[in-house]
């Protein structure tokens, strides 16, 4: 099984979860996700996912000037994003519970 493919299906949830309670910009989010163990993640897919979630009005953005580089776009979860994260988390928990049952059941 390719972990990158599994992660791809959960990337929206991972990005929403990583943004919970924090304000950050794209590259910082990439670093954070990698530090959390998503080493296989395609960086471009994180940037693209941020853009899509922002367009879906699940994120709020703010341009912040930087002393070391160009202005950066910082993202935060908004109310709709928090609600979506709650729904995604519930779905994820149901899937993992089902998978646990399937993988751990004894043969009959």
């Amino acid at each position, binding site marked *: 099984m390719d972990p990158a493919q599994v992660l791809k299906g959960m*990337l929206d949830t991972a990005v929403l979860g990583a943004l919970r309670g924090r304000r950050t*910009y*794209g*590259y910082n989010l*990439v670093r954070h996700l990698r530090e959390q163990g998503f080493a296989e993640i*395609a*960086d*471009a*897919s*994180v*940037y*693209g*996912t941020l*853009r*899509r979630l922002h*367009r879906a009005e699940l994120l709020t953005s703010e341009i912040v000037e930087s002393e*070391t*580089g*160009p*202005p*950066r*776009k910082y993202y935060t979860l908004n109310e709709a994003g928090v609600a979506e994260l709650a729904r995604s988390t519930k779905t994820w928990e149901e899937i993992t519970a089902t998978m646990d049952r399937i993988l751990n059941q004894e043969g009959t």
Partner: protein
Amino acid sequence: MNRPHLSATGTQYLKRVEDLLADIDDDDRASLLADLADQLGELPESEVSERLGTPEAFAGEYRHSAGLEIPLPSPPRSQSAAIAMTLSALALPFGVLVLLSFGGQLVFGPFVLAIEWILARVSPRPLRIAWSLLAALLAGEIGYLLTDTHVMEGVPAVVVGVVVAGLITLLFNRTTRHNADPPSSNDLDPVHRR
């Protein structure tokens, strides 16, 4: 734009991604390039392609994840097509002369129309329109000549002549329409992906 110091590889990579995403929203592109510049500024030159893939792959993955369509590149125009277009342009004035000289005789009409059709098929849009206009004139002439025969006379002959002219013009335009035109946005596959 104030950007972190980048290696030659990093600068080229950033420029290529910028070019590949030239069609997306300015704000989205600027935001992505700022993040990417940060990343390229930290990556050793030798690890750029290993970590990010090629600029084409990076831009493709970004579009895919962002839910953006990938524009199809314009089909390259072959040398033979360019020659055909030039010949078609040069033939246009002759087409007018041929129409004036021979088109008035019913027996030559279909032959002249066939030549115009072939030239319209290989012509770019403006020339095709010119050929179509010529063809419409000829079709009208054929319709008129049909009313001038002894087979049909009076109002029925005029009606048949107009219908024949209309059908010829319609068929001419429908069969030459898509040949040399670039694909419109409606022709693009909305789910075309890398």
